[in-house]
C-alpha cells in the first residue's frame, strides 16, 4: 500500500467523518424511513435507496442523516418518513412515493421548509424511534 500523505490523511478523515457523525448522531437533520413490515411492504426500501441517492446528489451527506426505524404505529399511512431538523419538533410524512419523499428531503431536510401537503400527523416525538 502506498504511503499516505497529509492531504490523503485529510481525505480519509473527511470520508469517515460521515460515519462518525452517524455514530455520534451529530448531523443537522435526520430523515427516518419507517421500515417495519408495513413500511417495507408499502415500498419503504425503494424510498430509502432513492433518498440515499438524492442525498449524494445534493452533497448533503454531512448534514443530513438518513436512517431507518421500524413500524411507527400508523400502518395505513405507510410509506412514511419522519424528518427531524435540529432544534425543531419532528415532522412525520405519510402516504409517500419515491418522488414525494425526495422532494421532502430536498425541501425540508435540506431546505428547512415543511412540506405541509404530505404531513400526516404533527408528531410529538419521532414515533417509533425513542
Amino acid at each position, binding site marked *: 500500500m502506498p504511503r*499516505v500523505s497529509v492531504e490523503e490523511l485529510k481525505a480519509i478523515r473527511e470520508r469517515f467523518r460521515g460515519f462518525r457523525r452517524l455514530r455520534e448522531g451529530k448531523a443537522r437533520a435526520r430523515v427516518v424511513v419507517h421500515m417495519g413490515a408495513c413500511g417495507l411492504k408499502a415500498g419503504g426500501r425503494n424510498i430509502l435507496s432513492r433518498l440515499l441517492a438524492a442525498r449524494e446528489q445534493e452533497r448533503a451527506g454531512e448534514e443530513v442523516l438518513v436512517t431507518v426505524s421500524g413500524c411507527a404505529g400508523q400502518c395505513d399511512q405507510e410509506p412514511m418518513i419522519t424528518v427531524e431538523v435540529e432544534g425543531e419538533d419532528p415532522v412525520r410524512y405519510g402516504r409517500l412515493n419515491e418522488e414525494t419523499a425526495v422532494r421532502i428531503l430536498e425541501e425540508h431536510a435540506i431546505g428547512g421548509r415543511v412540506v405541509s401537503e404530505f404531513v400526516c400527523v404533527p408528531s410529538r416525538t419521532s414515533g417509533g424511534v425513542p
Partner: protein
Amino acid sequence: MACAGTGCLSNRSADVKKTLQEEIARHGLDDEVLVVSTGCNGFCEQGPILVALPDGIFYQKVTVKDVPGLVEKYLLGGEPVESLLYRPPGQKEAVARMKDIQFFRDQRPIVLRNKGLIDPESIDEYIGMDGYQAMVKGLLEMTPEQIVEEVKKSGLRGRGGAGFPTGVKWEFCRKSPGNGKFLICNADEGDPGAFMDRSILEADPHSVLEGMVLAARAIGASEGVVYVRDEYPLALRRLQIAIQQAGDYGFLGEDILGSGHDFRIRVVRGGGAFVCGEETALIRSVEGRPGRPVPRPPFPAQKGLWGRPTVINNVETLSNVPTILREGGEWYARMGTSSSRGTKVFSLVGKVNNTGLVEVPMGTTLRQIIFDIGGGIPGGKRFKAIQSGGPSGGCIPESLVDLPVDYEELTKVGAIMGSGGLIVMDETSCMVDVARFFLGFLMDESCGKCTPCREGILRMHEILTDITEGRGTMEQLALLEELALAVKDASLCALGGTAPNPVLSTLRYFRDEYVAHIRDRKCPAGVCRSLIHYRILSERCTGCTACARACPAEAVKGKKKEKHEINAEVCIRCGACHEACNFEAVQVY
C-alpha cells in the same frame, strides 16, 4: 455496535454478534443495519453490551436468545426492548439512552473517548475521529522542544503509578547525551484489579501508537518497544494489527510524513512478573534477562535499554498525548486539580453495582465515583473502604469518602494513585484478610534480590496468616508494625518500598478489626475461615434442602420441609450452603 472487549467476549458477545448478523440478513436489513465490533465499552458489569446508533440505545446482558426478539421489536418495530435496557440499581424505570445512564453521564472521556465507538481494527475509523491529526501537527508544525513544552504545560503526569511529570521526563531524556534513544510503552499491566491498559489497547490501539510517535519525536528516539502482557491475547492481536496498518500508511517507519523522523515499533511480550512494572526491571526484561531492578541513578533516561537513554511511559499516559497536542496543553490543564491535571481512568471493581472503567477529572471525590457513577453497594450492604493503587496502595475508610482523588490527596491518606485500580469493599470484606491477600501477592512477586523485601514480606505474611487463623498475639501486632516500617525504609525498589502500605493503612484505619481477630478470635466481616461458623436461622429456613444438596461435607442435616441444621464439627466452612440458600437463612458468625 457489539462490544468485543475481553469482558464481553467472555459473555459470548461474539455469538451474539453472529446471531445478530444472521437475523438481520434474514429480515433483509443488511443494507440498513451495520453490525460492528468495538473495543471494551467499560461497563463490563452489564455485558454483553450492544449500542444501537444513531439512537444511542444501550442494550445490556444480551444473550443469543434475545437477538431475534431484538431484531423484530427494535430494528423492525422501532421500539426499544424494555427487558434488555439498563435499570439503575434500586430503580424500576429503565434507561434507554447511553447518554442518560449515570455511569456514562458523569464521565469525562479523553483517553476513553473512542471506546466502544470505533472499530479498533480500522485505522480509517480512528482517522475519522481526528486520529493522527496531532501527529501531523507534532511532526510538521512543531519542533521537538515545542512538543515537550506543550506536554509540560498540560501538567500530564505518569499514569502508571509514580505520577512523575511526563514532559519533564521527556526533557530529561532529550537532553541526555547519546544516540539511539529508546521509547518503551509499558503495557504490562501488573496491578491485579486494574485493566484500563488492556481496555485501551483493545478499544483504541492507534491512540497509543500516535502518542508513541509524538513521544519519540519529542525525546529523539527512532526505536520503540511495546512491552505487553502475554496474558492479554486480544490486546496483543489488535496492537499488532494497528502497528501493521500504521506501517502501511507510512505513519511508522522511515521519514514519517516527510518530516525526516524515523520511528519503528516492536512488540515484546512480558513474562508475567509484577516487579517488571519497575522501570529498571522492565528494561532488563526487554533485554531478555530476568526482570530484577537495579539501583538508580543512573536513571533510565540517562542509561536505559542496552545502556542508551530510554523513556518508559505507560499506555494511558501515551494515549493522552494526541489529545493534548490537538487541543493544547492549556486546555488539558484546565481539568483536574492544581497538582494533578486532566482526567484519570479508574477501574472500579469489587463490591459495587456498576463495575467497569470510568474516566473522570482529577479531583472528583470518591463518593461521586462510588455512589454516583458506581451506583453504590449491591445488596443494601454498607460501604466500608476502598482500596486504591493495587498491592502498593492502601485502604481508605468510609470516613474519608469525600476525599477528592488526586496524586497528593491519596498519598496523604496512606494510599497511592498507582495505575488507578479502585476496589470497593463492603461490610463483608475483612481488612486483615485483604492485607494478607496483598502481602501474599507481593511475597510471590518479590524478585528476591534484596533482603528486606524478600524476607520482610514473608514474615509479615506469616504474622497476618497467624492472625487470620486465630493464632495471633498482641505482641505480633507490634512486630508487624515494626517490620512494615523497616521494609518500607530498606528495600531497593518501589515494590518493597510500598509493599507495607496495605498493612500500614489497614492498621491505621481498621486496627479494631485486627484486635477482634486476636483478642476475641472473631472475624467481624465473617471472612476468615478459621474464625467463623455457619448457622441456619430456623425462622427463615423453609426446608427446601438447597443447602443440604450443596454441602460437600454432608454437614447439613434436616428433612424436606423441615428446619435444617449445620453440624459444626463436620462443616468445612466452604460457604456453599450460604450461596445456595435463597432465603438468607444461612448466616455467618
